[in-house]
């Protein structure tokens, strides 16, 4: 296998990081518990947990997409 496949894989990972980061910033900025929880600073922490859950879901999707790409790029060359 030519090594350009590995360089391409790194490039794809980089693009996914940029896009994933963008989605994270855009969507988590919309998450707010204001109006639902008003006890002191709890609102901030519940919102933070909601953002964390969203981020974890994104990371799971990111790993899934990478696994699919890895299998697709390297399928015929290495055992999976």
């Amino acid at each position, binding site marked *: *296998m*030519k*090594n350009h*496949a*590995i*360089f391409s*894989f*790194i*490039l794809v*990972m*980089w693009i996914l*990081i*940029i896009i994933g*980061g*963008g989605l*994270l*910033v*855009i969507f*988590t*900025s919309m998450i707010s518990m204001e109006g639902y929880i008003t006890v002191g600073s709890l609102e*901030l*922490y519940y919102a*933070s*947990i909601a*953002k*964390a859950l969203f*981020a974890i879901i994104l990371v799971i999707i990111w*790993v899934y997409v*990478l*696994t699919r790409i*890895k299998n697709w790029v*390297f399928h015929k*060359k*290495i*055992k*999976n």
Partner: protein
Amino acid sequence: MFDQIVPAILISIVAFFLVYVITPFLIRTLEKRNFTVKDYHRKGGAMIPRPGGPSILIGIIASEITLYLFFPTTAIITIIITTSLAFVVGIIDDRWALGGWFKPLALAASAIPIIFLGAYDSNLAFPLFGSFKIPALYLALIIFIIPITGNTINSIDVLNGVASGFMTIASFALTISLFIMQHYEIAIASLPLGFVSLAFYKYHKFPSKIFPGDSGALTLGAMYGVIAILGHVEIVAAIALLPAVINSFLFLSSVKRIVEHRQIRNPTTITPDFKLMVNNDKDAPVTLLSLILAAGPMTEKQIVSVIFKLALFSAFLAIVTSFMMEIKI
């Protein structure tokens, strides 16, 4: 800015020359005490002294203490404590080869001083889109980052010179990124990592005179992680490490569990003319080496050259990302 140039040059010299001078003494001491391991990839299977972690740690601690004399900041104390704790984890593993879960958990514990010293900012910054505040998630992230960077560098330490050479490239990319993003204090504090790695590479490159061992690899990886946290460059740091991340990702997705690398089959075998080729054993894990060797058998030097080209490519992407951090769309 000028008042920072002198300390920056001074700590770079201290870091480089301490490791450069101390390592030959360490090699002789380890040989005398018979702390050596076989280099299976070398013709005749030479016995190589291990671990080189002590000289790496001395270089880091001495240079960071020198910097502290100029700029007494919590960040420098945090770097010293976390890196030292990671070294202790590594030296225990070098001596007693503990189980697969020991290192991640012990490294997670070594990240706790970052939290207690309050040397972090819970904003996670992304290129082009800005940052977002995640107080709950960021604490967990700190606990995860040190084991990830430590083990990632440790897992790529499979050939002569790879861990130290790779760390030299990645850490200088991180330093350049920190300067671009105008985080000057952390950028200067990160200089010893690159210079220590560079000096150690002199003895670690093919044919190795010493191996860093877990103590060396975890020390370098943990310091890299703590700088990423303190400099708010977690994403840039991850990008500079991408080839090593791919290595860990492939390893975990093929082995499907956390396991000590000594407990699994070697992903490569050796041809009669001492080239490395993919191990076709169904129990052998898939790693970055497997991908590189899919082209056919290669010498150790050829493989290391490919890994360094991948590291340079990732370093370039990391620096591009740091420019993108300054742009908001």
